[in-house]
């Protein structure tokens, strides 16, 4: 029997090519791996090998022919016997219609939004049972307690990073953990972010639940490929087979007088990545409840802390197991005249501004996002529908920021409710300067926020 040899596609973009030269003639016996012809593609001249054994029957396209379409027959091959190899060339066909799918419109509608794993609901109800006792605790201690509680609960949880063990943490977040859990589970790494991040991801692929501490998020840029390409995308690329239950945590944003390479807010970078969850708390209770949730979450979680906030004290509920849901914002100060949306350190600034605005007769509602992905737009939109004005406040650069995203979404989804343009307050569009006076100018202030609120409420 005879089978057709087809013009091959030899690059991802090739549609036709030149058959430059035949290296076999009619009647030649060929076996798999033999070079049949040279073919010129849109990029280069390539050798074309035989796959099946047999005898060249007829050469259908003469050498030197240009514009030979991919998949058109160029020769015939005589295959003796049962010729199992001949089958696919003939049987290959266009893919069948895809499997039945959910409503196409519903799929299309989701295009604009980030893929929140679950629908988030507005947090109106209290997050702790009535009568719960609160203790005052620093954010630092709340984070430490969250890790310790989860490590006691689950043997698979371990902490690794630079100076997390014997030094007790560069910012003392892991104080006492080595003593309690030992060197097997509290691991000092060499200063090699790229390597230990990948190592942590490998351990997570195998079912361990690593907490990887970055001394600061600035150093995680060395490991960016592993975080995005390996941690965030593998579940998707494996059709759901692989899981990466890992937490990356450490201080993010500006510290004080450490200049450009050590002062950057990465929130928007990570929040743009599907497959990732991103948390940026301000209060100690949120730090604790959300870090515990992050450690239990089966997905990779980016946990953005803030060095300046570490030492602040807040009430934390005295509960045995206080876990908060990821992806829910919280209204930390209800108000009627304007919505201020903040996260991390700027929540404190927003509350301060709200107090000063109240003295001037402006009643601001302050929302603490807490999670940046999934982003709780429901809470933001509900608030805007009530106040008709929104100002976002963040420390990051202004271009393509979390504030940019929120303002865009508000304009798209609550346009008819707006009485003023959505407005952003952010860090300036410059690398962080060292000089004290310039650094101050580069960061957003309470006064900047007050001014922006006055502008949108037309009280300026």
């Amino acid at each position, binding site marked *: 029997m005879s089978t057709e040899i087809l013009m091959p596609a030899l690059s991802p973009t090739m549609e036709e090519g030149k058959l430059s030269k035949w290296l076999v003639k009619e009647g030649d016996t060929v076996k798999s791996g033999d070079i049949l012809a040279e073919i010129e593609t849109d990029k*280069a001249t390539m050798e074309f090998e035989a796959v099946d054994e047999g005898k060249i029957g007829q050469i259908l396209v003469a050498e030197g022919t240009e514009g030979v379409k991919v998949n058109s027959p160029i020769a015939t091959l005589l295959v003796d016997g049962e010729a199992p190899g001949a089958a696919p060339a003939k049987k*290959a066909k266009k893919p*069948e219609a895809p499997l*039945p799918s959910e409503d196409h419109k519903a799929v299309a509608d989701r295009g604009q939004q980030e893929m929140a794993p679950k629908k988030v609901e507005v947090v109106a109800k209290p997050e702790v049972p009535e009568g719960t006792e609160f203790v005052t605790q620093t954010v630092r201690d709340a984070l430490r307690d969250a890790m310790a509680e989860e490590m006691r609960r689950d043997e698979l949880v371990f902490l690794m990073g630079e100076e997390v063990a014997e030094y007790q943490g560069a910012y003392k977040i892991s104080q006492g953990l080595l003593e309690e859990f030992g060197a097997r589970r509290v691991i000092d790494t060499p200063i090699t972010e790229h*390597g230990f991040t990948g190592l942590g*991801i490998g351990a997570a692929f195998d079912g361990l639940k690593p907490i990887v501490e970055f001394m600061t998020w600035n150093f995680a840029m060395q490991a960016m490929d592993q975080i995005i390409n390996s941690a965030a995308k593998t579940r*998707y*690329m494996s059709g759901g*087979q692989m899981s990466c239950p890992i937490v990356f945590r450490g201080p993010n944003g500006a510290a004080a007088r450490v200049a450009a390479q050590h002062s950057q807010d990465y929130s928007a970078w990570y929040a743009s990545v599907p497959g990732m969850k991103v948390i940026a708390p301000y209060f100690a209770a949120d730090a604790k409840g959300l870090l515990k949730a992050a450690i239990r979450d089966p997905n990779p979680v980016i946990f953005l802390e803030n060095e300046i906030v570490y030492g602040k004290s807040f009430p934390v509920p005295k509960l045995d197991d206080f876990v908060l849901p990821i992806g829910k914002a919280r209204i930390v100060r209800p108000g009627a005249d304007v919505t201020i949306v903040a996260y991390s350190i700027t929540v404190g600034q927003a509350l301060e501004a709200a107090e000063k605005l109240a003295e001037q007769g402006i009643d601001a509602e302050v929302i603490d996002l807490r999670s940046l992905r999934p982003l709780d737009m429901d809470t933001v939109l509900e608030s805007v529908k009530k106040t008709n004005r929104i100002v976002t406040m963040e420390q990051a650069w202004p271009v393509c920021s979390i504030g940019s995203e929120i303002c865009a979404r508000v304009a798209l989804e609550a346009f008819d409710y707006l009485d003023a343009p959505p407005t952003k307050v952010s860090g300036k569009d410059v690398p962080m300067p060292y000089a004290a006076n310039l650094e101050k100018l580069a960061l957003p202030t309470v006064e900047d926020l007050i001014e922006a609120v006055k502008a949108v409420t037309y009280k300026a």
Partner: protein
Amino acid sequence: MPEAAKSNSESLKKLYHDMLLIRRFEERAGQLYGMGLIGGFCHLYIGQEAVVVGLMGAAKQGDQQITAYRDHGHMLAQGIDPKSVMAELTGRSTGLSRGKGGSMHMFSSEKKFYGGHGIVGAQVPIGTGLAFANKYRGSSAVTLTYFGDGAANQGQVYESFNMAELWKLPVIYVIENNEYAMGTSVARSSAVSDFSKRGASFAIPGIKVDGMDVEAVQKAGEEAMEHCRSGKGPIILEMKTYRYRGHSMSDPAKYRPREEVTEVREKRDPIDHFGKKLIERGVVNEEDLKQMDAEVKRVVVAAAEFATESPEPGTAELYTDIYA
């Protein structure tokens, strides 16, 4: 035939069979690519078959494998169904990653195959992490972490070497030296071309192996496994091998003379070479090999049919498997 000899003869035949399966599978994949049924990047393993087959011959149940994007052979050698691998290449719902990974991104947690990684060198710290997990759990499993001569110059490889030796992790670093990092030869890309010595500054031992000789590979693999399982930490195996085809399907391979490829094919081909040995030793005869070839072809043709006839993923699949 006594039981021991029979089982030995069966395992030798299996080595030959598995290499042949990879060869025929890859040839068919190349053909499907030519027909436009496989898209994007497709890196064939033709010529390197003895490496992965020999090492799997030395591995035990529970041992893990991780490699880069030239990964089809690793999966077939680990006993993953050729149909599901081929269907992934054609981007169909029946593929190992349900069509969402493609040639470079396939995984099987059941068979302990951890990918399938598209970024040169990225699989090395991840493989080291798998070994970390084995040690953490007190498991005796060993992780085979494969990378090429090109990846061997990546910084993250040395960060991994350092931690693996520091923490005595049970990982075998298999450097598949096929002489070309895409189009750049070892001589033009590597200051020191003896890759078996790349662990020297971390005190990681290395063995140079003829990667075209499946029995030599298996023997070195057994030695390396023993090293890891006895708690001595990581070890490097440099596999001297050769890739017959281009780096990917669209590589015309003009950086090396055709004669170089022909010579390796004629003198060092891992499958022909081993087939002749088996005949000489009386393990098989010509007819046995022909039968095996026909059987392998049937499997590969069935895989190709399955892969071209299966439906593409449903459109709802666009939004699944992003979060657990």
